[in-house]
């Protein structure tokens, strides 16, 4: 193929049966009228899950030559851009993209089996797909499963499509490893996670996550950099001395044992430091609520309200009565029962979790745990206040934040909750300097229920018990995130899972269960068995490779987008507090025969007959509310609703969205297009939800009654339908035991009674080059050039002393095996790892016959883990991410 063909046009070649070579050698379309022109476009980056950095795209002669941060005054990245954002041009100019609609002609499916893709026109592909989906819908719409994931976070039609179609089975590929939402939903009424207020925080403890640097998110790194310069103390509890640990104190910990550390830290605060925010506990939590021996609140007979104990007259009163001397701690006799306060229950429950006890499990020295507990409370400035915008807030400049590497273990939900309890002991919830939710900043987040405690939000609020269950199996895991592994288990074993219908169609839209879940073979088998599968895809990833139809979508730079600002996953500070914003991406002209994902979905919907009319996509969109920021999002409202009976272009939808926006002050979509953004700063006091329900107007659960209520409902539902909990041997021991309002040390199949040769524990992390494969970063050659020079990337990291003990040298080829699978790779000996840890970063490896070769190089951490039900955290359904492993040298391997 001539390398000089600079201006050849795309030849549409419907009917061709493609090889890898013919697909990758297809030249991009260049518009000849762009010759000699320079253009600058407003962009929004999408090279990580956050996807909100404002960028500036420069085109010369129609070719994107530069992608950089937009102006230094534009939030949230203020002109900076991470390595992935800077490599975005390679996402656009990627020969391994899917460039035209394809239909499989080889019925045999496998990662090394050529599908013999036949290129077809869009008409044919859409008609065929819609016909198949309509058949499924006519029979039973629940037969369609939609697998979404980080590959596409920008579609606004997917959810309305799903609802209009009538399937409950939206399966997030990411959920098995992202069970990090329970605590945030319960305590903050927010989604997805809780973050630290880096504007004011003085002491921050971070576990199992990043505040920015570990995987180079721009806004988090900016804020952390400023906070450290201000003098904030950072403590990083992690088996790995990470990029962030280099900026503060590193506390090495054995993988998968954070729950023990957290329990000990809480114990130390309660029993040794002895100081905590009594005011906060008494007024803003259910710690003083009286708990009966039966486990429920002691309720006032007249009003049904939970009661607290007044020491001044030794009687319990409803929580909203006035008290002479409210008891935080104690057990009291009332009408023949001994009731204890929630605080006492927690304290008693944590009594055995001394720092010495924890040290045996986590290897964190007891003295360190004690010191950190004391420092945390010392820095919390309990009792102090701060005034913001004329409102007086409690000021608690400390925060402890956990995420994936803490929560994705058996007992992970408990770890999440103990972290919240620790923050509550310091009073650092939703106040300046402390721990805030990273989502909706309105009052509804923490509005009180009739019990006086706030309504459990998002995933802490049980899903309805649907029976027969849907493919998601979330009836049995009412607080889970997304559960694709349970779907696969149910399909293998429909009787066990009480599944009464079959999977008939699979629509893949951004998810990759095969590479980024556990035990890939189960999903390959699932895709072999499903009668029809279609993938709306950017590149030939594993699920796309196994599909029947491929509908190629634009890459993100080609994808027009209007987006509201979602507060960020890592941290908050004055750079974004109070920010409400719309962002707009001006699309680059498409290089290939691709379509915008929302156009694809609308075309499919039209052909299936679910686009218009009542209950159609437009109707649903008219009533859709932003999941994360609720009424602050781009929700359509009167008088700007869509006419549900005509077809609309995306621009029409965007226009109405802008006009409907809560913070619009007369601007139109054209204004947003021109500027690239629309910024509306709100008073900073509205950023802390304490503002909406101050003092004792709402309460957070300190004693996690929500777990008991969920368990009661679940048990009742199982009994009502006469079924047992699927997939486990003993539902009391394996499931209900965990729904305990007092978090406890659950133990883990990876820590207890393991065969002695499994003497190490594997761990995984995201890196600056890999933060989930959003934007296809694994295959991006600019990033690959850089990560190949990174000592700890895509290798098997081992503590140097441990390696010496095992006779391993740096560079040796080794095999790491868990009880479920194995990987091979090169060893990297390092001082940066806990002696018991084996570290493998990112998600490299696997791939298919038609992959970008970079996708085929391992090692792939996911091959070490399992999705077996008895290893999951039963509350969140999360997969264990620190399996015990053994390591041995292997001869004759090569990188």
């Amino acid at each position, binding site marked *: *193929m001539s*390398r000089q063909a*600079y201006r050849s046009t795309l030849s549409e070649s419907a009917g061709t049966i493609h090889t890898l070579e013919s697909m990758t*050698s297809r*030249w991009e379309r*260049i518009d000849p009228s762009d010759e000699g022109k320079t253009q600058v476009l407003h962009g929004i980056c999408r090279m990580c899950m956050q996807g909100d950095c404002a960028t500036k795209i420069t085109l010369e002669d129609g*070719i994107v*030559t*530069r*992608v*950089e*941060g937009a102006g230094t005054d534009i939030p949230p990245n203020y*002109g*900076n*851009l*991470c*390595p*992935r*954002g*800077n*490599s975005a*041009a*390679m996402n656009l*100019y*990627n*020969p*391994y993209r899917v460039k035209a609609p394809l239909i499989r002609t080889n019925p045999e499916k496998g990662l090394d089996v050529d599908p013999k893709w036949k290129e077809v026109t869009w008409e044919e592909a859409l008609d065929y797909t819609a016909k198949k989906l309509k058949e499924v819908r006519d029979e039973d719409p629940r037969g369609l499963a939609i697998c979404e994931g980080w590959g596409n976070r920008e579609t606004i039609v997917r959810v309305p499509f799903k609802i209009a179609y009538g399937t409950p089975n939206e399966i997030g590929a990411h959920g098995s490893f992202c069970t990090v939402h329970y605590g945030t939903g319960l305590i903050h009424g927010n989604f997805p996670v809780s973050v630290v207020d880096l504007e004011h925080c003085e002491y921050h403890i971070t576990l199992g996550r990043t505040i*920015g*640097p570990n995987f*180079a*998110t721009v806004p988090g*790194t*900016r804020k952390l*950099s400023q906070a*450290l*310069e201000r003098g904030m103390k950072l403590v990083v509890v992690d088996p790995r*001395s990470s*990029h962030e*640990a*280099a*900026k503060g104190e*590193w506390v*090495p910990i054995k993988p998968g044992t954070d729950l023990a550390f957290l329990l000990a830290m809480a114990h130390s605060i309660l029993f040794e430091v002895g100081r905590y925010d009594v005011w906060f506990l008494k007024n803003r939590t259910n710690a003083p609520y009286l708990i009966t021996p039966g486990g429920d609140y002691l309720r006032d007979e007249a009003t049904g309200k939970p009661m607290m104990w007044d020491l001044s007259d030794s009687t319990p009163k409803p929580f909203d009565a006035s008290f002479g001397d409210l008891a935080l701690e104690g057990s009291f006799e009332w009408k023949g029962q001994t009731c204890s306060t929630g605080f006492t229950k927690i304290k008693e429950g944590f009594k055995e979790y001394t720092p010495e006890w924890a040290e045996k499990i986590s290897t964190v020295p007891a003295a360190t745990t004690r010191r950190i507990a004391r420092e945390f409370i010392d820095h919390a400035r309990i009792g102090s206040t701060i005034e913001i915008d004329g409102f007086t807030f409690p000021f608690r400049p400390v925060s402890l934040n956990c995420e994936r590497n803490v929560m994705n273990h058996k007992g992970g939900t408990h770890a999440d909750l103990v972290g919240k309890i620790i923050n509550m002991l310091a009073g650092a919830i939703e106040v300046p300097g402390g721990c805030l939710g990273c989502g909706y900043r309105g009052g509804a987040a923490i509005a009180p229920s009739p019990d006086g405690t706030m309504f459990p939000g998002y995933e802490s609020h049980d899903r309805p018990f649907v029976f027969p269950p849907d493919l998601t199996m979330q009836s049995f895991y009412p607080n889970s995130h997304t559960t694709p592994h349970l779907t696969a288990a149910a399909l293998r074993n429909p009787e066990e899972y009480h599944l009464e219908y079959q999977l008939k169609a699979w629509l893949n839209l951004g998810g990759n269960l095969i590479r980024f879940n556990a035990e890939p073979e189960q999903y390959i088998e699932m895709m072999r068995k499903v009668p029809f599968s279609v993938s709306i895809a950017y590149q030939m990833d594993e699920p796309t490779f196994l599909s029947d139809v491929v509908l190629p979508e634009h890459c993100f730079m080609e994808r027009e987008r209007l987006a509201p600002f979602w507060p960020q996953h890592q941290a908050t500070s004055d750079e974004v507090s109070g920010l409400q914003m719309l962002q707009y991406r001006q699309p680059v002209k498409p*290089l290939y025969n691709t379509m915008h994902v929302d156009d694809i979905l609308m075309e499919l919907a039209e052909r299936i007959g679910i686009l218009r009319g009542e209950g159609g996509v437009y109707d649903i969109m008219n009533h859709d509310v932003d999941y994360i920021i609720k009424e602050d999002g781009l929700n359509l409202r009167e008088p700007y609703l869509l006419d549900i009976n005509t077809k609309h272009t995306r621009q029409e939808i965007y226009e109405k969205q802008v006009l409907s926006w809560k913070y619009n002050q007369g601007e139109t979509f054209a204004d947003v297009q021109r500027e690239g953004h629309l910024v509306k700063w709100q008073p900073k006091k509205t950023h802390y939800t304490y503002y909406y329900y101050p003092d004792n107007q709402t309460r957070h659960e300190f004693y996690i009654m929500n777990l008991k209520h969920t368990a009661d409902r679940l048990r009742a539902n199982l009994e009502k339908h006469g079924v047992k909990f699927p997939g486990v041997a003993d539902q009391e021991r394996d499931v209900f035991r965990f729904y305990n309002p007092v978090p406890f040390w659950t133990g883990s199949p990876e820590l207890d009674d393991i065969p002695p040769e499994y003497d190490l524990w594997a761990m995984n992390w995201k890196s*600056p080059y890999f933060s989930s494969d959003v934007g296809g970063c694994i295959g991006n*050659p*600019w990033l690959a*050039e*850089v990560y190949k*020079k990174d*000592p700890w990337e895509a290798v098997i990291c081992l*503590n*140097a*002393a441990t390696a010496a003990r095992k006779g391993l040298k740096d560079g040796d080829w080794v095999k790491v095996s868990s009880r479920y699978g194995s990987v091979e790779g090169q060893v990297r000996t390092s*001082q*940066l*790892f*806990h*002696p018991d840890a084996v570290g493998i970063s990112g998600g490299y490896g696997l791939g298919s016959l038609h992959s970008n*070769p970079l996708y085929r190089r391992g090692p792939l951490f996911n091959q070490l883990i399992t999705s077996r039900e008895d290893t999951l955290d039963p509350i969140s359904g999360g997969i264990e991410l620190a399996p015990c492993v053994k390591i041995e040298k292997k001869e004759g391997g090569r990188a």
Partner: protein
Amino acid sequence: MRYGMLIDLNKCVGCNACTVACRNNNGTPAGVSLHKLLKYEAGVYPNAKMKFRPMPCMHCQDAPCAKVCPTGATVQRPDGIVDVDANKCIGCRSCITACPYDSRQFIWDFGDYYEQAQPTRLEQKRRLEFQKGTVVKCTFCLTRLQQGKVTACTATCPSQCRVFGDLDDPNSEVSRAIVDKGARPFREELETHPSVYYAGG
């Protein structure tokens, strides 16, 4: 006017945004990078930390590369930047052997970004700016400087660890930061008088 840079190693988080921004802005061919970031570790467990050292060209005031260049392709400009005139370079590579900071690279051949596939449109366009068989190096993004901007690596850094400006002006941000943070050049003992200063680390 003498351009110089300060890099605060206490703030650098080793993300390589600078390296990729450099590739993005300068369009260097596959395998060629005008910027590098050294990542290494210091200490012994449990007191071990990741260390980072981002390195553009040091733009030495007494540049060994300028000294050995036989055709005068490498010149020291009055504004302190050491530049290579690709039209004069004969590709003898003595500058590479002379440079103690490993800041220069020879374009052996034009590889493709995506191995085993074709060169992308972007490459085809930007290759026109380079000549096979010559040596390239960081020029502190001269084109951007002429537009009044700072270097790409400085502009993109998420932790704002870099300051770029006029070393001859004692009141410029970079001059004051060098003094305030006690910044020194890397491997100062080599006496090439770099224009890039490092603080912390």
